[in-house]
Structures are given as C-alpha cells and as structure tokens.
C-alpha cells in the first residue's frame, strides 16, 4: 500500500536531518532498514499501533528541547559493583566509562565490529529488528538500525562477576540520540545488563538480544528523571531452547516514553518475563508495548505491568501474546493494572491474545481503579497517616512488577527509588 502523502512528507523531513554513518560491514543492513522506513513511512497518528500515543514529537526533524534536571539524587545502583559504560547525549564517553574488559564477556563499540571482524555482531545487526517488523511494523526501530550513530556489542560467553551498566547521561537540552546495541548470550552463559539515565532530549534506542540455548539474560532498566525528555526504545529478543530472559523497567517522569519489547520464543522450554512499573505525575505519557511470540513447545511467558498515575498523567499498555500453531503447552500470562490517584489521569489498554494452538494456557487481565478505600481505612484506623498509608498501598500495588527482579540488591535499589519518588510527590 502506498504511504499516505502526509506521512511521506513527515518521513522525508525527518530523513533529511539524518546521515547514515559510514559503517562498512553494517552498511547493507542499514540500507535494508532504510528501505523498510521508506516503504512504511514513520508512524503517524492514524496508525492503529499508535492509537494511544501520538508519535509526532518522536519523528519531527529536530528534537523538542528538554531541560537537564540538576539532580541531587545519587545515581541509581551507585552503591553496587558494576561495569560502567557511559554515553553522554548518545555518544560513548571513554573517560567516564570503566575499562571494558571483564571475564566472561567481551564488549566492543559498534563502530569497531567491522575492523575487529566480530562475526556474531555483524550477523546480528538489524536481523532481529527486521524479524520484528512482522506482523506489526515498527518504523522507528528500522530508522534506528539505519542511522544509529553509536552503541555497543556485548558478547556474553561465561558468567561475568558483575552487571554491565549502560549509563545514559543527558547534557545538552537539544540532544537527539540514536543508539543501537547488539547482545549475544552464548549457550550456558549468564549476565545482567542494567540501563539507567535520561539519555537525551530525544532518545531512540534499539537493542537486539540473541540468547542461545540454556543462556540467561537479566535486564533491569531505570528510565531517568528529566521531566521533558522523550524516548522511543525497542528491545528485540530471540530465545533459544531452555533459555531465560527477564526484563524489568522502571519509568519515572519524561513527557513521552514508548517502550517496545518484542520477544520471540524459538526454542522449547524457554522462559521470558517482561515487567514494568511506572509512576507518572502531570504531563507524563508512558506507553508499554509488548509483543510476545510463542513459536516452540512448553515455553513460559509473563507480562506484568503496573502504572501509578496522577495529575493528568497517561498510561498506555498494548500487550500481545501470539501463540503460533504447534506451540503447544504454552503458558502465557499477562497482567496490566493501573492505579489512578486522581480523577484527571487516564489508563488506556489493549491486552491482546492471538492463539493458534489448542493445548495452551493463556490468561490475561487488566484492571483500573482508585486506591482501595477499605485498605486505606484499615491503615488509618491503625494510626497510619493518610499520606503514608497511600504511599504504602501504592508500593504494594507496584510490588508484583518489582518482584520480577531476581537480584535482591537491584530490587532494593528500585524500591528505594520508588519510595523517594512517592515521598517527594505526596
């Protein structure tokens, strides 16, 4: 189908501001991705997949300015031992980063994968993104593959002793960053990747994750505090036999965040958990879009998303479980819940199931409502002030999502952040 004129001109305007990096071995993948963008055009507000989130500001020629928050809070995970890889406004900063050598993992910059001839990365770049364009198109991810200016290739071959932390700092109020990472977890290997920080005024990030048989990847992300930042992120994950992928995202602030997780279970007995907790206050729009495809036998997937919203904040959840024919014994679960702390906020959800196999258990639930008055009354009758009681119940509401984090110290850091946010806001 031809791209509508409005879309076409918007796409052309955006592309005019971008130059494809001189990228050697990833050139072909980038050209293909550009062709995908041209074929579909960038997202428009009439696209069904963008029904609840307006993509306008994500595709304008220039990023909308976003003030850099003077942060008095120490960076999250500061107390934990981790390997730091720092990007400032989407540019790798060697001075701020740690030495990239760590046992069990090799880390390279994206621009080095050609000269160092890193086969797996060359072969992975753009591949999972391209697979993820069917059945739903994700033009922002294709745009990313075509124009990403930086990123890392993480090759997990053993069990590194500490998490790898990608830190995204925001310095310029007009920064517009496009980052693309590729991750390969080898058979039997296990690692934890952390992502933190507000990144840029506008951030387009794509991560392709290939987990081989018996591999395990933990992913914990804390999307930072700058109020005016905008972000569109895509995580494409392919899972082999008996592999495990567990991802948790905490989102606070930001005028617009669209997080897409595309997970494909291709090996039998694989496990994928994708969770998210978000707290929004005021001019805040947060969208979790998840697409889990079961294409193997006896796999398990969980989607757990919780949103606390107030003062006109908007929370969106679009989740899908697709069970392909033959993916018998699938265990799919999906829950999306919102807690609306006042009357101005809204929750928009589209929790979908598409099932082509008969011997499966898939369930989904979605609820929305105010804080439980009975529980509040119970706490108050026991002498807890309303404010504290509300915060307590809010944390309890978010707990199911936070519980998806396996590592206790990471979970604790996330809970501390949430407590801090609630204390400041109430």
């Amino acid at each position, binding site marked *: 189908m031809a791209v509508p004129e409005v879309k076409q001109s918007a796409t052309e305007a955006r592309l005019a501001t971008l130059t494809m990096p001189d990228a050697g071995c990833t050139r072909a993948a980038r050209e293909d991705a550009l062709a995908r963008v041209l074929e579909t055009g960038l997202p428009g507000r009439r696209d069904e997949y963008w029904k609840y989130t307006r993509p306008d500001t994500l595709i304008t020629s220039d990023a909308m300015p976003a003030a850099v928050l003077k942060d008095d809070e120490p960076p999250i995970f500061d107390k934990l031992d981790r390997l730091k890889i720092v990007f400032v406004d989407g540019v790798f900063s060697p001075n701020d980063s740690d030495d990239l050598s760590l046992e069990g993992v090799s880390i390279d910059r994206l621009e080095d994968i050609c000269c160092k001839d890193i086969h797996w990365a060359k072969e992975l770049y753009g591949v999972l993104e391209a697979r993820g364009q069917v059945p739903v198109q994700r033009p922002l991810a294709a745009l990313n593959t075509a124009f990403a200016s930086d990123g890392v290739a993480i090759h997990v071959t053993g069990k590194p002793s500490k998490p790898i932390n990608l830190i995204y700092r925001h310095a310029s109020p007009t920064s517009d960053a496009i980052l693309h990472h590729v991750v390969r977890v080898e058979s039997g290997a296990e690692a934890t990747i952390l992502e933190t920080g507000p990144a840029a005024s506008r951030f387009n990030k794509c991560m392709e994750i290939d987990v081989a048989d018996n591999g395990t990847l933990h992913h914990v992300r804390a999307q930072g505090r700058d109020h005016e930042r905008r972000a569109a992120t895509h995580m494409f994950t392919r899972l082999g036999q008996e592999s495990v992928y567990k991802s948790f995202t905490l989102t606070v602030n930001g005028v617009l965040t669209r997080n897409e997780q595309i997970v494909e279970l291709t090996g039998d007995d694989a496990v994928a958990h994708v969770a998210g907790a978000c707290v929004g206050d005021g001019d805040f729009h947060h969208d979790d879009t998840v697409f889990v495809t079961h294409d193997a036998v006896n796999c398990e997937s969980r989607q757990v998303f919780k949103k606390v919203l107030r003062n006109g904040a908007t929370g969106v959840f679009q989740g899908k479980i697709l069970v392909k024919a033959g993916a018998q014994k699938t265990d799919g679960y999906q829950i999306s819940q919102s807690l609306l702390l006042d009357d101005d906020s809204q929750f*928009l959800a589209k929790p979908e199931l598409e099932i082509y196999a008969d011997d499966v258990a898939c369930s989904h639930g979605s609820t929305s409502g105010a804080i439980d008055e009975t529980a509040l009354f119970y706490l108050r009758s026991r002498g807890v002030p309303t404010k504290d009681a509300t915060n307590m119940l809010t944390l309890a509401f978010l707990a199911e999502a936070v519980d998806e984090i396996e590592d206790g110290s990471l979970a604790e850091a996330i809970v501390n952040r949430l407590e801090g946010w609630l204390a400041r806001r109430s």
Partner: protein
Amino acid sequence: MAALDQAQVKEGVDQETVDAVREVGTYKYGWDTDIEMEYAPKGVNPDIVRLISDKNEEPEWMTEWRLAAFERWTKMDEPTWAMVHYPPIDFQDQYYYARPKSMEEKPKSLDEVDPKLLATYEKLGIPLKEQMILAGVEGAENAPAEGRKVAVDAVFDSVSVGTTFQKELKEAGVIFCSISEAIKEHPELVKKYLGTVVPVSDNFYATLNSAVFSDGSFVYIPPGVRCPMELSTYFRINAENTGQFERTLIIADKGSYVSYLEGCTAPQRDTAQLHAAVVEIIIEEDAEVKYSTVQNWFPGDENGKGGIYNFVTKRADCRGDRSKVMWTQVETGSAVTWKYPSCILRGNESQGEFYSIAIANNYQQADTGTKMVHLGKNTKSRIVSKGISAGKAQNTYRGLVSMHPKAKDSRNYTQCDSLLIGDKCGAHTVPYIEVKNNSSRVEHEATTSKVDDDQLFYCRQRGMDEEEAVALVVNGFCKDVLQALPMEFAMEAQQLVAISLEGSVG
C-alpha cells in the same frame, strides 16, 4: 465435520461439548424455497437506491436520506482491521432487492400470504399463525399461555411477509410493523429516531445499509407500557446472489419494557452472500430492552465454500437515566461475522449487558464483541463472552470499554473465555480499555479462576476441590446465560447447554 472427527481433542475438554459443537455445525436450514421472485437489476447506484425507495412507496425525504448515504458510501473504504479474510466483494455483482412475486400486492392479512411462504416459516419452526406452539421445544405446550406468545415479523429476502398479533399489540399501544410500513404510517417517529444511534456515516456497511435497506422491523413501546408479549423478527435469505440489508429501529419510551428476538437462516449455496444489517435501539428513562439473537446464517460448507458474510452494526443508546439494555447473542452461523452490538450508556445509572456465545467451525471466521461507552454517572456494564473454535475456524473477541471523564463511579466487568477444539483453529482476544476517571472500576478477566469468592467458598465447604468448584460455577454461569434466552430459542439453547468451557485457554 470430518475435521472435527479427526481432531485430537485436548485432555480436559468435555466430550459432550465436542458433540454439541459438532451438532451445531450441521446446518439444518440449508434447503431453499422454490418461489417466483422479482429482482431489481444487479448492482448498486443511485437508480437502484431510488428504485428500492419507490418499491417501498417512501416519501421524498426518505429517498433523499438514502441518496445522501449512497453518495457518502462511494467515498468510503471497506474496513480491513477485523481478523477475517475473504475474497474481495464485488458490490456490483449482487442483487440489492428481491421479493417474492406474490408480494407485489401487499397482503392485507396473513391469510392472504402465499402458502409457500407460510410453509417456509413453518418448516423453520416459526409458524406465522397466532397460536404459538414452538415447534420441537419440549414442554412449550405446558408453558403458561402468556409466556409463549410471540409476535413475529417475518422478513423474506428484501420484504416483510407479515406481522402477527398486530391487533393485540395495538390495544396495548405498541407499534410493531415492518420499517417500510412505519415510514409511511409513523413518519414523525422514524424521522425523529432513524440514524440517531447509528449515524449514516458510521461505517462502510452501515452507510451502505442506509442507502439500500429494503425492509426490517420497527418497534415503538409507549411510556409506561410493558410489552404484552415477546416481539420477534425472523430473517430468511432465500434468493441467490442477493444481499439482505435490513434495518431495525426499536424505541422504548419512558418506563417501558420489551423483549425482542431475532433469528436468521439461509439456504446452502456455493457462493457467498452479503448480509449487512443495522439495528438501532433508543431507550428512554427507566425503560428496558432485552435483545436476543440466534444467528444461524448458512456458514458455508465444510470446505469453506459459500456462506453468508454477516456485517452487522447494532447499537443501543441508553438515553434516559436508569435505562437498561441487555444483548444476548448466540452466533453459530455465517462464513464471516463482523458484529459488535454496543451500548452507549448516556443516562445516569444506566446499564448495559452483553452475553455472547460464538461457535465457529470448519472455515468460519467470527470477529465479534461489544462496545460499552460509559458517559453517564454510576453506569454499569457487564460483558461475558465465550468463544469456541473448531475445525479451521478463527474466533475473535473484539471489544471496547470506555469510561469517559464524567462517568464517575461507573463499573465494568468483562470476562471472555475461549475454547479451542483441535489444533487447526484459532482464538483471539482484542480488548480495548480506556479509563479516564479514577472513581470507576474496570476489570477485564480472561481466566476461569476469577469467579465469585462466596460461591467458591460455598462449594469448597461442601468438599469440592478448587478446580471442581470453579468449573461448576463457570459452567453454571454459562448455562444461566443460555437458559435466559427466550422460549423461542429454547431449542437451540438446549443443544448449546451441553457446552462446557473446561479446558479453555483464556
């Protein structure tokens, strides 16, 4: 049914259910009536629209209304978002008007109707005589006389053949007639309400319907009247290559009540036929409408050949405070179904309910569900949808629950379960949930575990394990819906009661 016989049925799926689905899948209404027909030329254009309007002897304003709709339709695109696939429809290769020759002169009473037509309905179990013993329904003859009376409007291809119990209804002040008659006899009511719930521009098929609808039923229940009997319209498509476009308009004035039933069948043919209906219901203060459908259009044969394309727009507007609507549908027919009976809950404390059982077999595709639009304060809605797929069928629940900012303290509860029989079919759920205030509660569940805690506790107290208790409660509920179907549909319901949703996939 071969596909179903060979299918490896998953453990835990009740054999009785499989048998019942198989039974439902055997189409019993595939015969046709050999009767001389009169057709309008094939295709649709302003002349055809005028011709239909002429045949119905409509006033000028109605013709203009239709022509405006047609004009609009030519600029619209066919929707493609539903999870259904079918070859492109050639809208010019259809008859838009077909009526039995004998209906040229409208019969003055049922006695004058062509016996062949009467026999057709007799054979379908819908006798157009005013003594209603429902054919084949056990125990119907013992039912109290009041309970078994059903007034029927019978629509055969493009025209209404006759309406029973006219006199008795008139005494109660109820108007129940074909819409073509209503346009002539009660233009003020039609003018006031037609197109106010489903606007002319609503969607592709509704707009087409607005241009070419040939007949349908009209109901007006005056203030404070409880309709003395159930009203029913029975649609039969008989002619080949003919689309049926009927329009139903139901108005329940303040404090009134009516239960309305709809049934439909078609002969077995190799080519697909189009059916695009519009149903509009207006419910004023304190009024209540119960609308039940057993949709049994020809579903196509076991190789997916033929069948009806059922593209229907149904909507109820609860305008007054405390008004109430209840949609109950049993969808077993049609090759392709595209149908979302909806409720606009405008009045404060108004209520909408939607109960649906959709069974798709062979190559059937059903994309069905509901919309609950909460606008008034304290409004309540409940959605219970059960989808069963067998053979190579695809069954989709698609629904919207929308809580507007002013719909304070509203409630919605949605439950949709699907059951797959065999590994070649599909079951899909596409709910849209939009909550724009925090005093409302919305719950969407697609698991069998969420049943009433008290009931569960009761069962467990009596020694059942949790699974048994859940099964009992859920199945009991499913049966409740079916048994709530009016007597008219008791026969179909009896079959379907055997269906259990044990082993449903969510």
